[in-house]
């Protein structure tokens, strides 16, 4: 097993006390003693989730990144074995003058192969939160806290003096991203989405607490404000845009346009390997179609499953294209969101 610090490759008996014989550093994990992951794989998950240490990420992002690493591997070429066996068996059966058996073999093995392929593709993630937290604590004990990890959402004291707040509060934003979770807000803020896009970022339930009232009041100063709802594929998340349009303390009665960026079930279903399983009855709601209710009763998908770099790029692209693409009713964002995003010039890339 290789050391994540020095790269030294050691045999199990050489790692006495779980220490690397190359650099003396402590290993966080020992797969030979039942751990589901090794240090190099965890380190790769950190590198992946932070895009090489350049992008801030949440604990949820890391959870998903690690879960991907320890998800049972795809069976790769073995998945095609039933097809090969079916063809070979069929040929042998035909050679032996038994066409009926050949047809049976072909149908049977092809059916098995197809089932394995579909099942493999649709297998959702399986690392529970407590299990991940246990792994994370062991990583921190051995390697320290990852530098780009965003601390959990917390209340902070107001930082601005009243005179400055009073002046700034008279201005507004061009756009606002309203999220269903504080973690998503913190992810965007930590990666300067607000700064880069002159964009307010708030959660529906009032995060960040120390500026929430000020920023929400600022939004009212711009009648041409564009609002983008960003949420997990959960029953509450999928109601978010509807709630923003229909609640008086948000945008009911205004001409503000609210766009539902993601994640709707239709968008989430395109990423079957990022889903979590659930079982729940989802009540009827005007924001949910019957098909979405059915899906939400079986699956969840968190925005945290996306690599932060991708989330930011997809959101940027969606915000620049959805107002143009939409017919005015706030729809039409599925394809904008679901395709892989690179840095984009965006149709309304208005700032500097």
């Amino acid at each position, binding site marked *: 097993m290789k050391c994540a610090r020095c790269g030294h490759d050691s045999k199990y008996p050489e790692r006495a006390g779980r220490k690397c014989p190359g650099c003396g550093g402590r290993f966080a994990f020992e797969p030979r003693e039942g751990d589901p992951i090794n240090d190099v794989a965890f380190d790769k998950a950190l590198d992946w989730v932070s895009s090489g240490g350049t*992008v801030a990420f949440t604990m949820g992002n890391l959870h998903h990144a690690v879960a991907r690493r320890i998800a049972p591997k795809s069976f790769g070429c073995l998945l095609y074995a039933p097809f090969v066996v079916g063809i070979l068996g069929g040929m042998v059966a035909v050679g032996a003058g038994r066409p009926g058996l050949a047809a049976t073999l072909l149908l049977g093995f092809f059916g098995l192969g197809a089932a394995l392929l579909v099942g493999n593709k649709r297998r959702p993630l399986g690392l529970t939160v407590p299990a991940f937290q246990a792994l994370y604590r062991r990583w921190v004990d051995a390697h320290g806290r990852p530098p780009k990890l965003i601390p959990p959402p917390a209340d902070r004291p107001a930082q601005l003096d009243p005179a400055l707040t009073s002046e700034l509060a008279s201005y507004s*934003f061009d756009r606002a991203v309203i999220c269903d979770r504080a973690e998503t807000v913190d992810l965007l803020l930590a990666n300067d989405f607000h700064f880069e896009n002159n964009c307010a970022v708030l959660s529906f339930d009032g995060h960040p607490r120390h*500026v929430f009232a000020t920023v929400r009041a600022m939004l009212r100063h*711009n009648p041409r404000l564009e609002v983008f709802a960003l949420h997990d594929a959960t029953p509450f998340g999928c109601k978010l845009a509807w709630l923003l349009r229909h609640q008086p303390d948000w945008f009911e009665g205004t001409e503000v346009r609210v766009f539902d960026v993601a994640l709707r079930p239709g968008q989430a279903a395109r990423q079957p390997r990022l889903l979590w399983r659930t079982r729940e009855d989802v009540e009827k709601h005007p924001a949910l179609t019957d098909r979405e209710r059915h899906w939400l009763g079986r699956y969840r998908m968190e925005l945290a499953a996306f690599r932060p770099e991708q989330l930011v790029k997809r959101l940027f692209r969606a915000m620049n294209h959805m107002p143009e693409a939409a017919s005015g009713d706030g729809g039409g964002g599925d394809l904008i969101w679901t395709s892989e995003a690179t840095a984009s010039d965006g149709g309304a890339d*208005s700032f*500097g």
Partner: protein
Amino acid sequence: MTDIAGAVGPIAPDTVERMLGGETAATPGATFGRKARPGRPGALHREGALFACAGHALGDDLDARLARDDFAGLDGAFAAARWDGTTLTLIRDPFGQRALFWTVVGGTFYFASELATLLAAPGVKVELDPIAVHKYLTFSFVPGEATPIAGVRRVAPGHVLTWRDGRVETRPWFVLEEHIAPVEQGAASKTLWRLALEAVGRRLRPGRAGLYLSGGIDSSAVGLWLKDAGADVTAFTLDFGAASVEREEAIEVARHLGLRHTLVPVQPAELGTHLDAIAGGLEMPFGDPVTGPHWLLGRAARAAGFDTVWNGEGGDQLFGGWTSKPMIAAAIYGGESETPAQQYLRSYHRFYGLEAELYAPALAAAVTPGERRATIARFLESDRAHTFLNRVRLTDISLKGSHNILPRAERMAAAHGLDLQMPLFDRRLAEWSFTLPTDLKLHGACEKYVLKLALQKRLPEAIVWRRKFGMSVPVTDWVLGPLRPVVETLLSDEAVRRRGLLRPEFVRALREGHDVAGETRRRRLGERLWALLMLEAWCRRFLDGRGRPA
């Protein structure tokens, strides 16, 4: 346009003439020179004192002003020098449109309004100043009095420099200060209209006027005021083909105002062949990709027989353009790890924060921490403005305006022998803008509100009130497309290694189309590559060639 140069101290009699190539005048101890196009503003005389001026002060005898040390209300676009037998005085216009470089070699003080002229002075060493490069890589221009050539400095915009008995002293003669006075919207828009018309009128000379018309509100406003002042205006608009963002708006404005209108096609491959001329014309490294198109605009205006062109630069800086918005967003949310100065540095979107990846070890070792923040803090933390918005405005005018927008535009016009008029960077207009309540600048999310109020009855509503669109230069397509051969040559691994400033692997990644992770805007890649391209082009022209064409 006119250029000047001079020397105070022991020199050979023909030194200034050889530096500048124009007429000279001398008094004991000093020689000044001027190189002028007929009819262009400028002066050289020795009536009482020796005096040389490039450009001109609006309606003023600058020589007399310098003699009296009187700068009240002084305005214009000029760089001038005066020698009274004991003291040399250099002065630059309030916003830094004209440049004035200086150095001291062997006890002789040399100055010139063009860098290449100064580098022709005997004994001037041409060695790179790494701090200036460090700042360039953050701002895309070099702010402050330093230049990228160690030992060569500039008079700061709105400053006076004196040289007496071997000692240099500088002091500001023009400072913007915030004095907000309550005013009704209607009255404010009328005052703006009056001041703007006066600003145009003071600069207007007989003959045809060329106008760089982008299709945005600022240049449209200048076109409107020129028409109102009775000028014969022809508009020039860049045509980026399918990538044009405001071309149709420019066509609409020209039609609305009844202006003759010329679309200037931009062929990026052609810019590649003129890169050395652009770098040479700019004199200082400027990394904004708008310089190439500006060079083409100047060429088109000159080819059409114009000798004066106008633009609408300054509206954002004076009246609260979009650049305030990111800073407001950052201030509201509060950076836990960054000061406003650091956030402002990041807003330039070049290489701030990427130093470890970009800088070669020698450059990294030469950089002292805090230089850039100190440059910003002088304005962003100044007590000359008390509102947050005006502190950002003051910083924008002093840095982005005076060290970037004005000089680069003037140089790209001058490269074709054009005088450039920027009436929005007018002293009275600027001083008045700092008396406005801030909500007349940024009104909710509406930028330049008072300017829009002033124009709403005279320009189409869609032009006045439409949302601001960003700079339209499709530079990423250029550097990864038609300009790729130039990029591959000037920024090859070997070229980068030989220059010794940057890490080849970082530049290579950009060349191959890989921007920094998390960058959402594709155009940033092109902006970064262009900035590096212009730095190398500048180094070749001025470091390797002392300002002579490659």
